[in-house]
């Protein structure tokens, strides 16, 4: 790619050192040839070949001097440096988010008088006045009613606390949506559908920018603290990818090559999940399974490195005070029994059914938000949903607290030391077993009370999450799904436990459950339920099981988790093949060619190619008879992304393909910098200038921007093969020829529309190129 037309490409030295002063960073970057338009797909083959060129240049220069050798080593190591930086920053941001959420969630209920920055638990950390029954209370932390009026109990205090809870929730969510609206509109939503699309080759400028990073971090804390039914895992993946993008811009190896940049972003997504769950391996598998598109195996090791660094950074910030990465890390190891697989599979079925219900309802609601008047009032919508959530959540103690704490309590086994309502069993006063092996006990009234409240909480959460996910604030979906599953699982677990205790002579229990033994662990049922619901919604398989067992720290529970995950995926797939993220991608019309979809129809390339029978003929350029004016008219009149170049209009033999953006920039450049180029100058794509009379103006050589090896298929190629080629090579367009003559063109949008048509979906919903 020699520079011969007046536009000089920067040498590697300039690229690496970032030529220019500080002030130049404030200037608008001049787009150079080879970059892409917003909302367009990249050309993977071109990016790969540019990277190979760059690498070859560096390797050949490294033999010249020691300095060049050092530079080539730095270039090789730059990938690892980027991973290290991503891990550090993601871990730090996740720690900040966790600490801030912890504090702000408790701020809705009261404040710590000795030091206002302490949450409830931290405030009572050093106090000596906590009792066994009221282990949460201490005089330093007071609820708002107590602070304002001096009364701690009574109807008036309750109503005042209720009112202030709602007020704080509304304030937080209003701040969140205003900040998103004013500073970074791309910071709303979960982020995972868009990141999946970006990683498959789509460009959304600004989606991974610095303001998006800042606003997403700040408003995520506000959104989670406001008590809405959403989680922070999906947004943390977005935050980590923004960090990845930020550090990519420090090295030209990644900033100038969109393909390499996406490798870094895959690894950053792994770091994001790793800090969200404290599961580095699960994070890498999630990135591999859900988010990434082309995942060269060499980034597997780098993703793992980034995930580990992030997890280590988070652990050293130590947000939860006990060296655990996640709030619901459980450590019991009680065994489970084969007969319990029946309730586990039932929980899997529940998870699959709930997943289907949620996806359909949420997509219907989001479609309504997209197309009707509802979408015109985003701030009002957020405030109303927060108001309703806070209003209904406060009376039930299980929904009043943050969802993570709820899940943590549901996962925990009831020893003799718990004093919560859920653990109100009748204890044998003469019991002297160690705390881990308590036999099954009859439930006290507290447990039945808790079951009622949990059932109400389950219904509430199922309904409200449908309206919450997709609002214009950062919102994730993992924690609400896990909460729904954990509540259902715990209810089933307590039911099974009580049945086993009271009816231990039934045939199903007689074989494995002796009276006086610890047969049933309701906490395990909660975990299995959480895995089932999360699997039903997202359709994750291996990564889900690995995340769940990294959360629990026990390999004993892999089989129940797998049983539930597999069942829920089967049940959910019976109703619809797409998970929540693929459904959102379809709703938005992103050009995402799913790797998992199989195309089994027997159409041919001629059926899909453009121009169709009634369309105007294909817009082409000739190799040496188009003038600059013709080209400019062509660009202005059409909006195609590129034009094939043929020998002449009569012979129609294909020479190559040229992109619209490259044409625009090259002609603009030529007009400004080269003299003699006017509207009637001839544009030629051959090596030598055409033979023209001397009176003609100077011709313009544009061979540099011509792609001489465009992909072609013949008209009788089956569409199955064409779809496979698009998917595996990441093409944007493919030319159709017959006996060497150009017939038409197939673009990615055409392929997606054809697939949608074949699946009886609306082909007009594919919006982007």
């Amino acid at each position, binding site marked *: 790619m020699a520079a011969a037309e007046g536009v000089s490409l920067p040498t590697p030295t300039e690229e690496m050192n970032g030529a220019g002063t500080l002030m130049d960073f404030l200037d*608008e970057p001049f787009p150079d040839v080879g970059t892409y338009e917003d909302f367009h797909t990249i050309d993977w083959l071109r990016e790969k070949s540019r990277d190979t060129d760059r690498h070859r240049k560096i390797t050949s220069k490294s033999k010249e001097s020691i300095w060049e050798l050092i530079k080539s080593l730095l270039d090789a190591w730059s990938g690892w440096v980027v991973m290290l930086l991503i891990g550090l920053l993601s871990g730090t941001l996740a*720690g900040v988010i966790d600490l801030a959420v912890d504090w702000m969630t408790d701020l809705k209920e009261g404040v710590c008088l000795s030091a206002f920055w302490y949450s409830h638990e931290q405030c009572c950390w050093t106090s000596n006045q906590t009792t066994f029954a009221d282990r949460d209370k201490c005089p330093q932390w007071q609820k708002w009613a107590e602070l304002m009026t001096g009364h701690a109990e009574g109807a008036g205090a309750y109503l005042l606390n209720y009112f202030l809870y709602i007020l704080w929730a509304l304030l937080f969510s209003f701040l969140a949506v205003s900040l998103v609206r004013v500073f970074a509109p791309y910071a709303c939503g979960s982020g995972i559908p868009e990141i999946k699309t970006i990683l498959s080759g789509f460009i959304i400028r600004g989606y991974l920018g610095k303001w998006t990073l800042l606003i997403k971090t700040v408003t995520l804390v506000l959104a989670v603290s406001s008590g809405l039914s959403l989680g922070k895992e999906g947004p943390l993946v977005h935050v980590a990818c923004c960090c990845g993008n930020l550090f990519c811009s420090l090295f030209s190896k990644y900033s100038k090559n969109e393909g390499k940049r996406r490798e870094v972003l895959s690894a950053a997504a792994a770091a994001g999940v790793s800090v969200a769950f404290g599961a580095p391996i699960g994070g890498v598998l999630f990135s591999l399974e859900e988010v990434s598109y082309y995942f060269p195996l060499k980034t597997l090791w780098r993703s793992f490195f980034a995930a580990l660094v992030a997890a280590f950074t988070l652990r050293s*910030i130590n947000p939860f005070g006990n060296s655990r990465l996640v709030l619901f890390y459980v450590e019991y190891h009680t065994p489970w029994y084969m007969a319990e697989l029946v309730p586990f599979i039932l929980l899997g079925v529940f998870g699959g059914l709930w997943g289907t219900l949620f996806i359909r309802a949420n997509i219907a609601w989001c479609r309504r938000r997209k197309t009707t008047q509802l979408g015109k009032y985003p701030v009002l919508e957020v405030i109303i949903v927060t108001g309703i959530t806070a209003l209904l959540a406060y009376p039930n103690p299980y929904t009043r607290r943050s969802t993570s704490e709820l899940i943590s309590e549901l996962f925990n086994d009831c020893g003799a030391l718990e004093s919560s309502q859920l653990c109100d069993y009748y204890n044998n006063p003469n019991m002297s077993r160690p705390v881990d092996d308590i036999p099954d006990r009859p439930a006290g009234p507290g447990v039945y009370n808790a079951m009622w409240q949990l059932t109400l909480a389950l219904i509430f959460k199922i309904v409200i999450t449908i309206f919450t996910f997709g609002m214009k604030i950062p919102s994730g979906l993992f924690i609400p799904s896990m909460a729904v599953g954990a509540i259902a699982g715990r209810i089933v677990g307590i039911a099974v436990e009580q049945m086993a205790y009271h009816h231990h002579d039934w045939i199903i229990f007689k074989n494995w459950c002796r009276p006086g033994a610890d047969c049933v662990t309701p906490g395990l049922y909660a975990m299995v339920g959480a895995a089932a619901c999360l699997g039903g919604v997202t359709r994750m398989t291996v990564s889900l099981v690995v995340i769940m067992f990294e959360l629990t720290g026990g390999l004993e529970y892999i089989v129940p988790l797998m049983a539930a995950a597999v069942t829920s995926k089967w049940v959910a797939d019976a109703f619809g093949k797409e998970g929540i993220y693929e459904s959102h991608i379809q709703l938005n019309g992103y050009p995402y060619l799913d790797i998992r979809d199989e195309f089994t129809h027997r159409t041919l390339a001629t059926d899909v190619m453009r121009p169709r029978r009634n369309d105007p003929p294909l817009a082409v350029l000739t190799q040496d008879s188009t003038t600059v004016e013709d080209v400019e008219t062509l660009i202005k009149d059409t909006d195609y992304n590129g034009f094939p170049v043929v020998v002449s209009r009569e012979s129609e033999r294909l020479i190559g393909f040229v992109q619209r953006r490259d044409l625009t920039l090259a002609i603009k450049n030529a007009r400004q910098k080269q003299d003699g180029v006017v509207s009637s100058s001839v544009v030629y794509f051959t090596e030598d200038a055409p033979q023209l009379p001397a009176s003609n103006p100077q011709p313009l050589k544009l061979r540099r921007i011509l792609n001489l090896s465009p992909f072609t298929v013949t008209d009788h190629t089956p569409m199955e093969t064409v779809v496979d080629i698009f998917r595996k090579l990441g093409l944007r367009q493919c030319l159709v020829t017959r006996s060497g003559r150009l017939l038409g063109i197939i673009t990615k949008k055409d392929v997606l529309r054809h697939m949608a048509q074949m699946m009886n979906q609306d082909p007009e919903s594919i919006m982007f190129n």
Partner: protein
Amino acid sequence: MKFLFGVEAFCLACFVLLSQVSAKNSEDIRCKCICPPYREVEGQIYKQNVSLKDCNCLHVVEPMPVDGKDVEAYCLRCECKYEERSSGTIKVTIIIYLSILGLLLLYMVYLTLLEPMLKRRLFGHSQLIHSDDDVVGDQQPFANAHNVLSRSHSRPNMLNKVEHAQQRWRRQVQEQRKSVFDRHVVLS
């Protein structure tokens, strides 16, 4: 500016890490023993600032509520956990977060309320600000920016550059807002 932002983020990370290493006072470690009810004795929680090796029932539970021969039975039921936290990190993080939030809120109030008021008072300040309402379509993606920049090449100083950068940023945000909130094209 990109480089500065990266350096700043890195410094923040280091600062938070270092602050938690440096702030290890005795108040930040504790051993918490929870003892359930035993015969006539009620359940109790005992806390003491002892180190990991002394974190067991005998060192922490004081005064021992049962006599000599029952001590072992009582202590078997107690669960003692060693916990550490870093109060310095918590304080620094919350204060940094609140200050960033406060700055953003002030800037938001300035952008939405104060600046239009100031613009109305000083109309005719510059033609540049008026042109940021009409967004040019896809045909000429960078024509407007080049016109804007070329007009002011007569005054290439720092304030001007900052203002241009800010104008560009606001135009981008406006585009984003249009795609997300108005046309519902992305992120429905």
